[in-house]
Protein backbone atom coordinates (compact mmCIF):
# COMPACT_ATOMS: atom_id res chain seq x y z
CA UNK A 1 0.00 0.00 0.00
CA UNK A 2 2.72 2.41 0.97
CA UNK A 3 4.63 1.56 -2.17
CA UNK A 4 1.72 2.49 -4.40
CA UNK A 5 1.04 5.71 -2.55
CA UNK A 6 4.67 6.69 -2.83
CA UNK A 7 4.55 5.96 -6.53
CA UNK A 8 1.75 8.44 -6.90
CA UNK A 9 3.42 11.10 -4.84
CA UNK A 10 6.53 10.70 -6.97
CA UNK A 11 4.47 11.53 -10.06
CA UNK A 12 3.95 14.96 -8.52
CA UNK A 13 1.19 16.88 -6.87
CA UNK A 14 -0.65 19.47 -8.91
CA UNK A 15 -3.22 20.62 -6.36
CA UNK A 16 -2.66 20.61 -2.66
CA UNK A 17 -5.66 21.26 -0.43
CA UNK A 18 -5.01 22.34 3.14
CA UNK A 19 -7.63 22.77 5.85
CA UNK A 20 -10.47 23.59 3.46
CA UNK A 21 -13.82 24.48 5.04
CA UNK A 22 -16.87 25.70 3.16
CA UNK A 23 -20.22 26.98 4.35
CA UNK A 24 -23.43 27.64 2.43
CA UNK A 25 -24.92 30.17 4.84
CA UNK A 26 -24.95 28.34 8.18
CA UNK A 27 -24.59 24.89 6.71
CA UNK A 28 -21.04 23.58 6.63
CA UNK A 29 -20.68 21.61 3.42
CA UNK A 30 -16.96 20.84 3.61
CA UNK A 31 -15.12 20.09 6.83
CA UNK A 32 -11.37 20.42 7.07
CA UNK A 33 -10.40 18.80 3.79
CA UNK A 34 -6.72 17.94 3.30
CA UNK A 35 -5.58 16.16 0.17
CA UNK A 36 -2.91 16.19 -2.53
CA UNK A 37 -4.18 15.60 -6.07
CA UNK A 38 -1.63 13.84 -8.30
CA UNK A 39 -0.61 15.33 -11.64
CA UNK A 40 -1.36 13.55 -14.94
CA UNK A 41 -3.61 11.08 -13.24
CA UNK A 42 -7.33 10.61 -13.02
CA UNK A 43 -8.68 11.36 -9.59
CA UNK A 44 -12.19 10.19 -8.79
CA UNK A 45 -14.30 11.84 -6.12
CA UNK A 46 -16.87 9.42 -4.79
CA UNK A 47 -19.50 9.41 -2.07
CA UNK A 48 -23.25 9.49 -1.61
CA UNK A 49 -25.35 12.44 -2.84
CA UNK A 50 -24.90 15.57 -0.79
CA UNK A 51 -21.54 14.47 0.61
CA UNK A 52 -19.73 17.51 -0.73
CA UNK A 53 -17.80 15.99 -3.61
CA UNK A 54 -19.23 18.32 -6.26
CA UNK A 55 -18.87 21.28 -3.92
CA UNK A 56 -15.25 20.31 -3.35
CA UNK A 57 -14.60 20.08 -7.07
CA UNK A 58 -16.13 23.47 -7.70
CA UNK A 59 -13.83 25.06 -5.13
CA UNK A 60 -10.96 24.13 -7.44
CA UNK A 61 -12.07 26.47 -10.25
CA UNK A 62 -13.88 28.81 -7.89
CA UNK A 63 -17.29 28.22 -9.46
CA UNK A 64 -18.66 28.26 -5.92
CA UNK A 65 -17.88 31.97 -5.83
CA UNK A 66 -21.02 32.46 -7.92
CA UNK A 67 -23.32 31.10 -5.22
CA UNK A 68 -24.59 33.77 -2.86
CA UNK A 69 -23.82 33.21 0.83
CA UNK A 70 -20.82 30.96 0.30
CA UNK A 71 -17.90 31.22 2.75
CA UNK A 72 -14.63 29.46 2.15
CA UNK A 73 -11.67 29.05 4.52
CA UNK A 74 -8.41 27.23 3.99
CA UNK A 75 -5.82 26.99 1.25
CA UNK A 76 -5.87 25.39 -2.15
CA UNK A 77 -2.44 25.43 -3.71
CA UNK A 78 -2.43 24.97 -7.46
CA UNK A 79 1.17 24.60 -8.62
CA UNK A 80 2.18 26.23 -5.35
CA UNK A 81 -0.09 29.26 -5.71
CA UNK A 82 -3.04 29.74 -3.37
CA UNK A 83 -6.00 30.14 -5.70
CA UNK A 84 -8.01 31.99 -3.06
CA UNK A 85 -5.31 34.64 -2.77
CA UNK A 86 -6.58 38.14 -3.50
CA UNK A 87 -4.04 38.54 -6.32
CA UNK A 88 -5.37 35.56 -8.30
CA UNK A 89 -7.24 36.39 -11.48
CA UNK A 90 -10.30 34.13 -11.43
CA UNK A 91 -10.78 34.12 -15.19
CA UNK A 92 -7.15 33.03 -15.69
CA UNK A 93 -7.63 30.32 -13.11
CA UNK A 94 -10.75 29.01 -14.85
CA UNK A 95 -8.86 28.99 -18.10
CA UNK A 96 -6.23 26.75 -16.51
CA UNK A 97 -8.75 24.57 -14.67
CA UNK A 98 -11.46 23.69 -17.17
CA UNK A 99 -14.76 22.09 -16.38
CA UNK A 100 -17.21 19.69 -18.01
CA UNK A 101 -20.67 19.65 -16.48
CA UNK A 102 -23.10 16.90 -15.59
CA UNK A 103 -25.50 17.83 -18.33
CA UNK A 104 -23.95 18.50 -21.72
CA UNK A 105 -24.35 22.23 -22.23
CA UNK A 106 -23.14 23.25 -25.67
CA UNK A 107 -23.94 26.85 -26.57
CA UNK A 108 -26.76 27.33 -29.08
CA UNK A 109 -24.23 28.00 -31.83
CA UNK A 110 -22.42 26.02 -34.50
CA UNK A 111 -19.98 23.29 -33.50
CA UNK A 112 -17.13 25.48 -34.71
CA UNK A 113 -18.26 28.51 -32.71
CA UNK A 114 -18.67 26.41 -29.59
CA UNK A 115 -15.02 25.40 -29.68
CA UNK A 116 -13.80 28.82 -30.84
CA UNK A 117 -15.70 30.65 -28.09
CA UNK A 118 -13.05 30.13 -25.41
CA UNK A 119 -10.03 31.03 -27.56
CA UNK A 120 -11.91 34.06 -28.92
CA UNK A 121 -12.64 35.52 -25.50
CA UNK A 122 -9.02 34.96 -24.61
CA UNK A 123 -7.97 37.07 -27.56
CA UNK A 124 -7.34 34.68 -30.48
CA UNK A 125 -8.54 36.51 -33.59
CA UNK A 126 -6.73 34.88 -36.49
CA UNK A 127 -8.97 32.61 -38.51
CA UNK A 128 -6.18 30.19 -39.31
CA UNK A 129 -5.20 29.89 -35.68
CA UNK A 130 -8.83 29.32 -34.67
CA UNK A 131 -9.22 26.66 -37.36
CA UNK A 132 -6.16 24.93 -35.99
CA UNK A 133 -7.40 25.07 -32.39
CA UNK A 134 -10.84 23.79 -33.37
CA UNK A 135 -9.40 20.84 -35.26
CA UNK A 136 -6.91 19.96 -32.55
CA UNK A 137 -9.47 20.22 -29.73
CA UNK A 138 -12.00 18.09 -31.58
CA UNK A 139 -9.30 15.52 -32.36
CA UNK A 140 -8.16 15.45 -28.75
CA UNK A 141 -11.76 14.88 -27.70
CA UNK A 142 -12.04 12.02 -30.22
CA UNK A 143 -14.96 13.56 -32.06
CA UNK A 144 -13.29 15.14 -35.08
CA UNK A 145 -14.15 12.34 -37.47
CA UNK A 146 -17.81 12.53 -36.55
CA UNK A 147 -18.20 16.27 -36.99
CA UNK A 148 -15.52 17.47 -39.41
CA UNK A 149 -18.02 17.69 -42.27
CA UNK A 150 -20.56 19.71 -40.34
CA UNK A 151 -18.63 22.21 -38.27
CA UNK A 152 -21.10 24.91 -39.27
CA UNK A 153 -24.10 22.91 -38.08
CA UNK A 154 -25.74 23.66 -34.77
CA UNK A 155 -24.25 21.85 -31.81
CA UNK A 156 -27.75 21.27 -30.49
CA UNK A 157 -28.41 18.77 -33.28
CA UNK A 158 -25.82 16.31 -31.96
CA UNK A 159 -26.56 13.27 -29.80
CA UNK A 160 -26.13 13.52 -26.02
CA UNK A 161 -22.82 11.66 -26.06
CA UNK A 162 -21.48 13.78 -28.91
CA UNK A 163 -22.57 16.94 -27.12
CA UNK A 164 -20.68 15.90 -24.03
CA UNK A 165 -17.52 15.18 -26.02
CA UNK A 166 -18.00 18.54 -27.73
CA UNK A 167 -18.07 20.11 -24.28
CA UNK A 168 -14.83 18.34 -23.47
CA UNK A 169 -13.35 19.66 -26.70
CA UNK A 170 -14.56 23.13 -25.81
CA UNK A 171 -12.83 22.87 -22.45
CA UNK A 172 -9.63 21.65 -24.14
CA UNK A 173 -9.64 24.55 -26.60
CA UNK A 174 -8.46 27.04 -23.98
CA UNK A 175 -5.48 24.77 -23.19
CA UNK A 176 -6.28 23.92 -19.60
CA UNK A 177 -3.97 22.16 -17.19
CA UNK A 178 -6.65 20.36 -15.21
CA UNK A 179 -10.05 19.15 -16.39
CA UNK A 180 -12.84 18.83 -13.86
CA UNK A 181 -15.67 16.49 -14.81
CA UNK A 182 -18.82 16.72 -12.75
CA UNK A 183 -20.62 13.39 -13.25
CA UNK A 184 -20.12 14.00 -16.93
CA UNK A 185 -21.31 10.57 -18.00
CA UNK A 186 -24.29 10.17 -15.69
CA UNK A 187 -26.80 11.21 -18.35
CA UNK A 188 -25.28 9.08 -21.11
CA UNK A 189 -25.84 5.59 -22.42
CA UNK A 190 -23.20 2.90 -21.78
CA UNK A 191 -21.59 3.24 -25.21
CA UNK A 192 -21.19 7.00 -24.96
CA UNK A 193 -19.97 6.56 -21.40
CA UNK A 194 -17.40 4.06 -22.60
CA UNK A 195 -16.14 6.50 -25.23
CA UNK A 196 -15.73 9.25 -22.68
CA UNK A 197 -13.95 6.97 -20.23
CA UNK A 198 -11.57 5.92 -22.97
CA UNK A 199 -11.07 9.56 -23.79
CA UNK A 200 -10.23 10.33 -20.15
CA UNK A 201 -7.52 7.68 -20.21
CA UNK A 202 -5.98 9.42 -23.23
CA UNK A 203 -6.40 12.87 -21.74
CA UNK A 204 -4.35 12.07 -18.66
CA UNK A 205 -1.23 11.92 -20.81
CA UNK A 206 -1.43 15.67 -21.24
CA UNK A 207 -3.84 16.81 -18.54
CA UNK A 208 -4.82 16.09 -14.99
CA UNK A 209 -8.39 14.85 -14.74
CA UNK A 210 -10.56 15.14 -11.64
CA UNK A 211 -13.99 13.55 -11.89
CA UNK A 212 -16.99 13.30 -9.66
CA UNK A 213 -18.78 10.02 -10.17
CA UNK A 214 -21.65 8.09 -8.67
CA UNK A 215 -20.63 5.03 -10.55
CA UNK A 216 -18.26 2.93 -8.48
CA UNK A 217 -17.33 0.71 -11.43
CA UNK A 218 -16.38 3.80 -13.35
CA UNK A 219 -14.11 4.93 -10.54
CA UNK A 220 -12.44 1.51 -10.53
CA UNK A 221 -12.18 1.38 -14.34
CA UNK A 222 -10.64 4.75 -15.00
CA UNK A 223 -9.28 6.44 -11.90
CA UNK A 224 -5.80 6.17 -10.45
CA UNK A 225 -6.52 8.02 -7.25
CA UNK A 226 -9.76 8.13 -5.35
CA UNK A 227 -11.24 10.34 -2.63
CA UNK A 228 -14.21 9.17 -0.59
CA UNK A 229 -16.42 11.92 0.86
CA UNK A 230 -19.12 11.53 3.47
CA UNK A 231 -21.20 14.30 5.04
CA UNK A 232 -18.72 16.97 4.08
CA UNK A 233 -15.68 15.11 5.32
CA UNK A 234 -12.95 13.51 3.28
CA UNK A 235 -12.91 10.05 4.81
CA UNK A 236 -10.20 8.48 2.75
CA UNK A 237 -7.94 9.42 -0.14
CA UNK A 238 -5.89 6.63 -1.62
CA UNK A 239 -4.82 5.19 -4.89
CA UNK A 240 -7.90 3.56 -6.33
CA UNK A 241 -6.81 -0.05 -6.09
CA UNK A 242 -6.03 0.25 -2.42
CA UNK A 243 -9.14 2.18 -1.62
CA UNK A 244 -11.35 -0.44 -3.17
CA UNK A 245 -9.46 -3.55 -2.05
CA UNK A 246 -8.16 -2.57 1.34
CA UNK A 247 -10.07 0.46 2.62
CA UNK A 248 -8.69 1.74 5.92
CA UNK A 249 -11.96 3.12 7.16
CA UNK A 250 -15.05 1.06 7.90
CA UNK A 251 -17.30 3.68 6.29
CA UNK A 252 -15.32 3.54 3.06
CA UNK A 253 -15.60 -0.22 3.05
CA UNK A 254 -19.36 -0.05 3.60
CA UNK A 255 -19.75 2.39 0.75
CA UNK A 256 -17.54 0.73 -1.83
CA UNK A 257 -19.07 -2.66 -1.11
CA UNK A 258 -22.49 -1.17 -1.67
CA UNK A 259 -23.77 -1.41 1.89
CA UNK A 260 -25.15 2.14 1.75
CA UNK A 261 -25.36 5.10 -0.55
Amino acid at each position, binding site marked *: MTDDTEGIILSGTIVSVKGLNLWYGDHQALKNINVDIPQNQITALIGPSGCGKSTFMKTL*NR*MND*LIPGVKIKGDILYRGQNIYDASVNV*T*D*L*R*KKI*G*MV*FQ*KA*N*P*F*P*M*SIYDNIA*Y*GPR*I*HGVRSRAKLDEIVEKSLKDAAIWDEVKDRLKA*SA*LGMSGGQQQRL*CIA*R*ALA*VQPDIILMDESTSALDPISTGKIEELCLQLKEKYTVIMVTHNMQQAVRVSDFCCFFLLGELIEAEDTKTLFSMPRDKRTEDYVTGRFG
Partner: protein
Amino acid sequence: MNNTETVTVDAAAAAGAKEAKEKLNAKETFWQVLFLICGIIAVGFVLAISIYLIISGIPAIHKIGIFKFMFGTKWASTAAEPSFGILPFILTSIYGTAGAVVIGVPIGLMTAVFLSKAAPKKFAAVIKNCVQLLAGIPSVVYGLVGMIVLVPSVQKAFHLASGATLLAAVIVLAIMILPNIINVSLTALDAVPKEYEEASLALGATRTETFFKISVHAARSGIAAAVVLGVGRAIGEAMAIIMVSGNVANMPGLLKSVRFMTTAIASEMSYAAVGSLQRNALFSIGLVLFVFIMLINVFLNVVIKGKGKEQ
Protein backbone atom coordinates in the same frame (compact mmCIF):
# COMPACT_ATOMS: atom_id res chain seq x y z
CA MET B 1 -83.27 -15.05 -11.99
CA ASN B 2 -80.48 -13.33 -10.32
CA ASN B 3 -78.62 -13.34 -13.56
CA THR B 4 -81.36 -11.67 -15.56
CA GLU B 5 -81.64 -8.98 -12.93
CA THR B 6 -78.00 -8.19 -13.20
CA VAL B 7 -78.29 -8.05 -16.94
CA THR B 8 -81.15 -5.57 -16.76
CA VAL B 9 -79.26 -3.46 -14.30
CA ASP B 10 -76.21 -3.55 -16.55
CA ALA B 11 -78.27 -2.55 -19.57
CA ALA B 12 -79.78 0.32 -17.63
CA ALA B 13 -76.32 1.41 -16.52
CA ALA B 14 -75.07 1.22 -20.10
CA ALA B 15 -77.99 3.29 -21.34
CA GLY B 16 -77.32 5.83 -18.57
CA ALA B 17 -73.65 5.98 -19.52
CA LYS B 18 -74.57 6.49 -23.15
CA GLU B 19 -76.89 9.31 -22.25
CA ALA B 20 -74.23 10.91 -20.09
CA LYS B 21 -71.76 10.56 -22.93
CA GLU B 22 -74.11 12.24 -25.36
CA LYS B 23 -74.65 15.03 -22.88
CA LEU B 24 -70.90 15.41 -22.54
CA ASN B 25 -70.54 15.48 -26.31
CA ALA B 26 -73.17 18.17 -26.59
CA LYS B 27 -71.33 20.19 -23.97
CA GLU B 28 -68.03 19.70 -25.77
CA THR B 29 -69.54 20.78 -29.06
CA PHE B 30 -71.03 23.87 -27.45
CA TRP B 31 -67.65 24.98 -26.06
CA GLN B 32 -65.81 24.18 -29.25
CA VAL B 33 -68.23 26.28 -31.27
CA LEU B 34 -67.88 29.08 -28.74
CA PHE B 35 -64.08 29.01 -29.01
CA LEU B 36 -64.33 28.94 -32.78
CA ILE B 37 -66.57 32.01 -32.76
CA CYS B 38 -64.15 33.88 -30.50
CA GLY B 39 -61.31 33.00 -32.85
CA ILE B 40 -63.31 34.12 -35.85
CA ILE B 41 -64.15 37.44 -34.20
CA ALA B 42 -60.48 38.43 -34.07
CA VAL B 43 -59.86 37.36 -37.65
CA GLY B 44 -63.07 39.05 -38.70
CA PHE B 45 -62.04 42.38 -37.26
CA VAL B 46 -58.65 42.25 -38.94
CA LEU B 47 -60.31 41.47 -42.24
CA ALA B 48 -62.99 44.12 -41.78
CA ILE B 49 -60.45 46.80 -40.93
CA SER B 50 -58.18 45.84 -43.82
CA ILE B 51 -61.04 45.84 -46.31
CA TYR B 52 -62.45 49.09 -44.99
CA LEU B 53 -59.04 50.76 -45.18
CA ILE B 54 -58.47 49.58 -48.71
CA ILE B 55 -61.93 50.61 -49.90
CA SER B 56 -61.79 54.02 -48.29
CA GLY B 57 -58.11 54.61 -49.04
CA ILE B 58 -58.06 53.76 -52.74
CA PRO B 59 -60.29 56.58 -54.18
CA ALA B 60 -58.06 59.46 -53.11
CA ILE B 61 -54.90 57.68 -54.23
CA HIS B 62 -56.61 56.97 -57.54
CA LYS B 63 -57.68 60.57 -57.95
CA ILE B 64 -54.39 62.16 -56.92
CA GLY B 65 -52.22 59.55 -58.57
CA ILE B 66 -50.16 57.12 -56.54
CA PHE B 67 -46.84 58.64 -57.50
CA LYS B 68 -47.92 62.18 -56.72
CA PHE B 69 -49.47 61.02 -53.47
CA MET B 70 -46.61 58.91 -52.18
CA PHE B 71 -43.72 61.02 -53.41
CA GLY B 72 -45.18 64.52 -53.49
CA THR B 73 -43.30 66.69 -51.06
CA LYS B 74 -46.00 69.27 -50.49
CA TRP B 75 -49.08 68.80 -48.34
CA ALA B 76 -51.56 71.69 -48.50
CA SER B 77 -54.94 70.08 -48.04
CA THR B 78 -56.94 73.24 -47.42
CA ALA B 79 -55.22 75.61 -49.86
CA ALA B 80 -57.15 77.10 -52.80
CA GLU B 81 -55.18 74.76 -55.01
CA PRO B 82 -54.74 71.78 -52.71
CA SER B 83 -51.69 69.55 -52.88
CA PHE B 84 -51.61 66.08 -51.38
CA GLY B 85 -48.03 64.82 -51.21
CA ILE B 86 -47.37 62.66 -48.15
CA LEU B 87 -43.65 62.02 -48.57
CA PRO B 88 -42.91 64.35 -45.63
CA PHE B 89 -45.19 62.27 -43.41
CA ILE B 90 -43.76 58.96 -44.58
CA LEU B 91 -40.18 60.09 -44.09
CA THR B 92 -40.97 61.63 -40.71
CA SER B 93 -42.58 58.41 -39.54
CA ILE B 94 -39.59 56.39 -40.73
CA TYR B 95 -37.01 58.76 -39.23
CA GLY B 96 -38.94 59.12 -36.00
CA THR B 97 -39.32 55.37 -35.54
CA ALA B 98 -35.72 54.68 -36.51
CA GLY B 99 -34.53 57.35 -34.09
CA ALA B 100 -36.64 55.92 -31.29
CA VAL B 101 -35.27 52.45 -31.97
CA VAL B 102 -31.67 53.68 -32.15
CA ILE B 103 -32.00 55.34 -28.75
CA GLY B 104 -34.52 53.03 -27.10
CA VAL B 105 -33.22 49.58 -28.02
CA PRO B 106 -29.69 49.89 -26.59
CA ILE B 107 -30.96 51.47 -23.38
CA GLY B 108 -33.79 48.96 -23.06
CA LEU B 109 -31.56 45.99 -23.81
CA MET B 110 -28.88 47.10 -21.36
CA THR B 111 -31.56 47.60 -18.71
CA ALA B 112 -32.93 44.13 -19.38
CA VAL B 113 -29.45 42.57 -19.16
CA PHE B 114 -28.79 44.42 -15.94
CA LEU B 115 -32.13 43.40 -14.42
CA SER B 116 -31.88 39.80 -15.53
CA LYS B 117 -28.24 39.11 -14.76
CA ALA B 118 -26.48 41.67 -12.65
CA ALA B 119 -28.85 43.62 -10.42
CA PRO B 120 -29.36 42.72 -6.77
CA LYS B 121 -32.80 41.13 -6.44
CA LYS B 122 -34.48 43.85 -4.39
CA PHE B 123 -33.14 46.63 -6.57
CA ALA B 124 -34.27 44.75 -9.68
CA ALA B 125 -37.77 44.41 -8.24
CA VAL B 126 -37.97 48.18 -7.73
CA ILE B 127 -36.83 48.88 -11.28
CA LYS B 128 -39.21 46.28 -12.72
CA ASN B 129 -42.11 47.97 -10.96
CA CYS B 130 -41.04 51.33 -12.35
CA VAL B 131 -40.91 49.85 -15.86
CA GLN B 132 -44.43 48.47 -15.42
CA LEU B 133 -45.59 51.92 -14.35
CA LEU B 134 -43.89 53.46 -17.35
CA ALA B 135 -45.83 51.06 -19.57
CA GLY B 136 -49.06 52.09 -17.91
CA ILE B 137 -48.70 55.83 -18.37
CA PRO B 138 -51.18 57.06 -21.03
CA SER B 139 -49.53 58.44 -24.13
CA VAL B 140 -51.22 61.80 -23.71
CA VAL B 141 -49.32 62.19 -20.43
CA TYR B 142 -46.04 61.50 -22.22
CA GLY B 143 -47.07 64.24 -24.63
CA LEU B 144 -47.88 66.67 -21.84
CA VAL B 145 -44.61 66.11 -20.01
CA GLY B 146 -42.74 66.29 -23.29
CA MET B 147 -44.46 69.57 -24.11
CA ILE B 148 -43.71 71.14 -20.75
CA VAL B 149 -40.22 69.78 -20.08
CA LEU B 150 -38.66 68.49 -23.26
CA VAL B 151 -39.77 71.03 -25.85
CA PRO B 152 -38.45 74.08 -23.96
CA SER B 153 -35.18 72.26 -23.22
CA VAL B 154 -34.67 71.45 -26.90
CA GLN B 155 -35.47 75.04 -27.78
CA LYS B 156 -32.88 76.35 -25.33
CA ALA B 157 -30.24 73.78 -26.15
CA PHE B 158 -30.30 74.52 -29.88
CA HIS B 159 -31.45 78.16 -29.79
CA LEU B 160 -34.53 77.49 -31.86
CA ALA B 161 -37.67 79.49 -32.36
CA SER B 162 -39.63 76.46 -31.23
CA GLY B 163 -38.50 73.32 -29.51
CA ALA B 164 -41.35 71.29 -30.96
CA THR B 165 -39.23 69.23 -33.33
CA LEU B 166 -38.54 65.76 -34.66
CA LEU B 167 -35.82 65.46 -32.02
CA ALA B 168 -38.33 66.01 -29.19
CA ALA B 169 -40.67 63.45 -30.76
CA VAL B 170 -37.85 60.92 -31.13
CA ILE B 171 -36.95 61.26 -27.47
CA VAL B 172 -40.57 60.87 -26.35
CA LEU B 173 -41.00 57.81 -28.60
CA ALA B 174 -37.75 56.29 -27.33
CA ILE B 175 -38.99 56.56 -23.75
CA MET B 176 -42.40 55.20 -24.72
CA ILE B 177 -41.01 52.05 -26.31
CA LEU B 178 -38.63 51.36 -23.41
CA PRO B 179 -41.12 49.29 -21.37
CA ASN B 180 -41.88 47.05 -24.38
CA ILE B 181 -38.22 46.52 -25.13
CA ILE B 182 -37.29 45.92 -21.49
CA ASN B 183 -40.15 43.57 -20.62
CA VAL B 184 -39.91 41.36 -23.66
CA SER B 185 -36.09 41.18 -23.67
CA LEU B 186 -36.15 40.49 -19.94
CA THR B 187 -38.44 37.51 -20.40
CA ALA B 188 -36.15 36.18 -23.12
CA LEU B 189 -33.00 36.73 -21.06
CA ASP B 190 -34.51 35.14 -17.96
CA ALA B 191 -35.28 32.06 -20.03
CA VAL B 192 -31.64 31.51 -21.04
CA PRO B 193 -30.55 28.25 -19.37
CA LYS B 194 -28.12 28.83 -16.52
CA GLU B 195 -25.96 26.03 -17.91
CA TYR B 196 -24.90 28.20 -20.87
CA GLU B 197 -23.68 30.92 -18.58
CA GLU B 198 -21.91 28.47 -16.26
CA ALA B 199 -20.14 26.89 -19.22
CA SER B 200 -18.95 30.29 -20.38
CA LEU B 201 -17.73 31.30 -16.94
CA ALA B 202 -15.96 27.97 -16.53
CA LEU B 203 -14.04 28.72 -19.74
CA GLY B 204 -12.65 31.83 -18.10
CA ALA B 205 -15.03 34.39 -19.59
CA THR B 206 -15.86 37.35 -17.39
CA ARG B 207 -19.44 37.95 -16.34
CA THR B 208 -19.80 40.81 -18.81
CA GLU B 209 -18.46 38.70 -21.68
CA THR B 210 -20.83 35.92 -20.69
CA PHE B 211 -23.87 38.21 -20.60
CA PHE B 212 -23.25 39.78 -23.96
CA LYS B 213 -21.78 36.88 -25.90
CA ILE B 214 -23.84 34.02 -24.47
CA SER B 215 -26.99 35.30 -22.76
CA VAL B 216 -27.89 37.95 -25.34
CA HIS B 217 -26.94 35.59 -28.15
CA ALA B 218 -29.15 32.83 -26.78
CA ALA B 219 -32.02 35.26 -26.23
CA ARG B 220 -31.71 37.02 -29.55
CA SER B 221 -34.98 35.91 -31.10
CA GLY B 222 -36.83 37.20 -28.04
CA ILE B 223 -34.89 40.42 -28.22
CA ALA B 224 -35.77 40.77 -31.90
CA ALA B 225 -39.42 40.30 -30.97
CA ALA B 226 -38.98 43.12 -28.47
CA VAL B 227 -37.65 45.36 -31.23
CA VAL B 228 -40.61 44.49 -33.46
CA LEU B 229 -43.00 45.44 -30.69
CA GLY B 230 -41.12 48.67 -30.11
CA VAL B 231 -41.20 49.55 -33.80
CA GLY B 232 -44.91 48.80 -33.92
CA ARG B 233 -45.63 51.03 -30.97
CA ALA B 234 -43.42 53.87 -32.22
CA ILE B 235 -44.76 53.96 -35.77
CA GLY B 236 -48.36 53.78 -34.60
CA GLU B 237 -48.14 56.40 -31.87
CA ALA B 238 -50.00 59.69 -32.47
CA MET B 239 -51.12 61.37 -29.29
CA ALA B 240 -47.79 61.86 -27.55
CA ILE B 241 -45.94 63.12 -30.58
CA ILE B 242 -48.63 65.41 -31.90
CA MET B 243 -47.93 67.53 -28.83
CA VAL B 244 -44.15 67.73 -29.15
CA SER B 245 -43.41 67.59 -32.87
CA GLY B 246 -44.87 70.94 -33.97
CA ASN B 247 -47.26 69.27 -36.39
CA VAL B 248 -46.11 71.16 -39.50
CA ALA B 249 -45.92 69.32 -42.82
CA ASN B 250 -42.22 69.96 -43.41
CA MET B 251 -39.79 67.56 -44.99
CA PRO B 252 -38.18 66.04 -41.90
CA GLY B 253 -35.12 67.47 -40.21
CA LEU B 254 -33.98 66.70 -36.71
CA LEU B 255 -34.52 70.27 -35.53
CA LYS B 256 -37.53 71.07 -37.70
CA SER B 257 -41.19 70.95 -36.78
CA VAL B 258 -42.62 67.88 -38.44
CA ARG B 259 -45.78 65.89 -38.91
CA PHE B 260 -46.05 62.07 -38.81
CA MET B 261 -48.49 59.92 -40.76
CA THR B 262 -50.47 59.29 -37.60
CA THR B 263 -50.54 62.91 -36.52
CA ALA B 264 -51.58 64.04 -39.99
CA ILE B 265 -54.69 61.91 -39.75
CA ALA B 266 -55.42 62.84 -36.15
CA SER B 267 -55.04 66.55 -36.64
CA GLU B 268 -57.10 66.99 -39.80
CA MET B 269 -59.81 64.38 -39.45
CA SER B 270 -61.84 66.53 -37.09
CA TYR B 271 -62.45 69.28 -39.65
CA ALA B 272 -62.23 67.47 -43.00
CA ALA B 273 -65.64 67.57 -44.71
CA VAL B 274 -67.31 64.20 -45.30
CA GLY B 275 -66.74 63.03 -48.86
CA SER B 276 -64.09 65.65 -49.57
CA LEU B 277 -60.80 64.76 -51.21
CA GLN B 278 -59.02 65.91 -48.05
CA ARG B 279 -60.89 63.38 -45.94
CA ASN B 280 -60.35 60.62 -48.47
CA ALA B 281 -56.65 61.47 -48.60
CA LEU B 282 -56.50 61.04 -44.83
CA PHE B 283 -57.95 57.56 -45.23
CA SER B 284 -55.29 56.91 -47.84
CA ILE B 285 -52.61 57.91 -45.32
CA GLY B 286 -54.15 55.37 -42.97
CA LEU B 287 -53.86 52.74 -45.67
CA VAL B 288 -50.21 53.59 -46.30
CA LEU B 289 -49.47 53.43 -42.57
CA PHE B 290 -51.21 50.07 -42.38
CA VAL B 291 -49.20 48.70 -45.28
CA PHE B 292 -46.00 50.01 -43.68
CA ILE B 293 -46.68 48.24 -40.41
CA MET B 294 -47.53 45.02 -42.23
CA LEU B 295 -44.32 45.21 -44.25
CA ILE B 296 -42.20 45.89 -41.19
CA ASN B 297 -43.77 42.97 -39.36
CA VAL B 298 -43.32 40.60 -42.24
CA PHE B 299 -39.75 41.76 -42.85
CA LEU B 300 -38.69 41.47 -39.22
CA ASN B 301 -40.43 38.11 -38.85
CA VAL B 302 -38.58 36.77 -41.86
CA VAL B 303 -35.29 38.09 -40.51
CA ILE B 304 -35.92 36.56 -37.08
CA LYS B 305 -37.07 33.24 -38.44
CA GLY B 306 -34.15 33.16 -40.84
CA LYS B 307 -31.76 33.71 -37.96
CA GLY B 308 -33.54 31.12 -35.88
CA LYS B 309 -32.99 28.49 -38.56
CA GLU B 310 -29.32 29.26 -38.89
CA GLN B 311 -28.45 28.01 -35.41
